[in-house]
């Protein structure tokens, strides 16, 4: 990780305001989202880095939490079980039942619950000390989740509506549109089949990417300006670090929620009668 000089922690550099050192030399950028392999070779496709470690650790934490809470659940719940039940119930009732409905939605509850807690955990790494990197700001992670949802959506639509029904559903076929029907169908086709999985993944990725960049920016700036009367600016910047950390905490949960809400909306669209 520390092979690249820009991968060191902000406080490890001696670059400060008024020292003739430019902020560009320390400012966050794309390089902040690239990690040297902890193991293996970065040039080949066989390596292990920090984001992978965090992703797997996140899995273990989620499974560990729910294992502790739900391994031997009681009818009269303990504290941990109550907390876990509240989270489970929130997704089950608040997201799945609300969008897909109780009867059809029950089957997808495990998937949606897993998605929500997985995404939330990966987002949460952003503000967990020492980790401090949102795993979902690497496009691979949101993309693989969006692809799972996309494949599920396509296969469900096929199963429910058959071959013709699938294309009607995907193109939003509606005779009443008249002359604009071909154009509408083309747009719908692109929107549903090509752009949707992309936006689904990028919405999460971009939010986390931007959030992490902001946090980095204010953190690095706080250190960079800590020189002479720049201390006053550094103070403001540091207050922003605190504020943005709190804001990120909110955004992380919100983006996880949005991700599963969209998942449910897509599943619901696949199950619904086409218009």
């Amino acid at each position: 990780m520390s092979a690249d000089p820009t991968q060191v922690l902000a406080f490890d550099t001696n670059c400060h305001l008024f020292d003739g050192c430019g902020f560009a030399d320390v400012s966050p950028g794309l390089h902040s989202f690239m990690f040297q392999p902890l193991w293996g070779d970065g040039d080949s496709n066989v390596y292990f880095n920090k984001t992978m470690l965090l992703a797997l650790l996140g899995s273990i934490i989620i499974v560990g939490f729910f294992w502790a809470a739900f391994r031997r659940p009681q009818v009269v719940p303990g504290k941990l079980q109550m907390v876990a039940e509240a989270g489970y119930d929130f997704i089950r009732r608040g997201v799945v039942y609300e969008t897909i409905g109780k009867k059809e939605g029950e089957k997808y509850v495990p998937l949606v619950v897993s998605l929500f807690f997985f995404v939330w955990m990966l987002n949460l790494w952003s503000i967990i000390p020492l980790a401090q990197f949102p795993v979902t700001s690497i496009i691979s992670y949101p993309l693989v989740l969006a692809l799972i949802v996309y494949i599920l959506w396509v296969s469900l639509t096929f199963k429910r509506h058959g071959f013709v029904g699938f294309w009607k559903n995907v193109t939003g076929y509606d005779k009443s549109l008249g002359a604009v029907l071909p154009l509408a169908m083309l747009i719908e086709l692109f929107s549903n089949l090509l752009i949707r999985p992309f936006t689904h993944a990028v919405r999460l990725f971009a939010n986390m990417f931007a959030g992490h960049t902001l946090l980095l920016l204010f953190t690095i700036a706080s250190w960079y300006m800590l020189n002479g009367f720049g201390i006053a600016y550094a103070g403001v910047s540091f207050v922003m670090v605190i504020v943005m950390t709190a804001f990120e905490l909110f955004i992380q949960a919100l983006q996880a929620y949005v991700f599963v809400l969209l998942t449910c909306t897509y599943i619901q669209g696949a199950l619904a009668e086409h218009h």
Partner: protein
Amino acid sequence: MSQLLIAASEGENPLVPPIPELVIGLLAFVIVFGFLAKKLLPNINKVLEQRREAIEGGIEKAEAAQTEAQSVLEQYKAQLAEARHEAARLRQEAQEQGATLIAEMRAEGQRQREEIVAAGHAQIEADRKAAASALRQDVGKLATELAGKLVGESLEDHARQSRVIDRFLEDLEEKAEAAR
């Protein structure tokens, strides 16, 4: 900026997914999904169902208890009403009995009074008769004596004597009757 340029020149694009991360991401998610979907969520669903049943059972029990309480209350109310009715009936009966008792006692008192009065009357009559009979004898004797003295002869003949006396007394009685 130099690093940015390097990154760009290396063709690093944050929207191009690195393949190993895709694989690990999939693996990490499958771990979570596998545990949750196969073991932990079925676990909790079973318990949630049990809890729902327990709560419904509790509600049913409470309803049964309430129904029983209601029936017991009705029973008590009925008993209370019956008791009130009985009490009223008893009071009525007592009043009636009291009234007959008073009437009976009054009748008895009347009867006794009449008896006493009658006994008094009989006594008076008997006394009167005794007195009359005694008087008759005395008057007869006196009159005979007087007559004997007056006439100078003894009216020893008993038969005549009593005849004279009887006639005299009858006259006397007639006079008394007329006077009444």
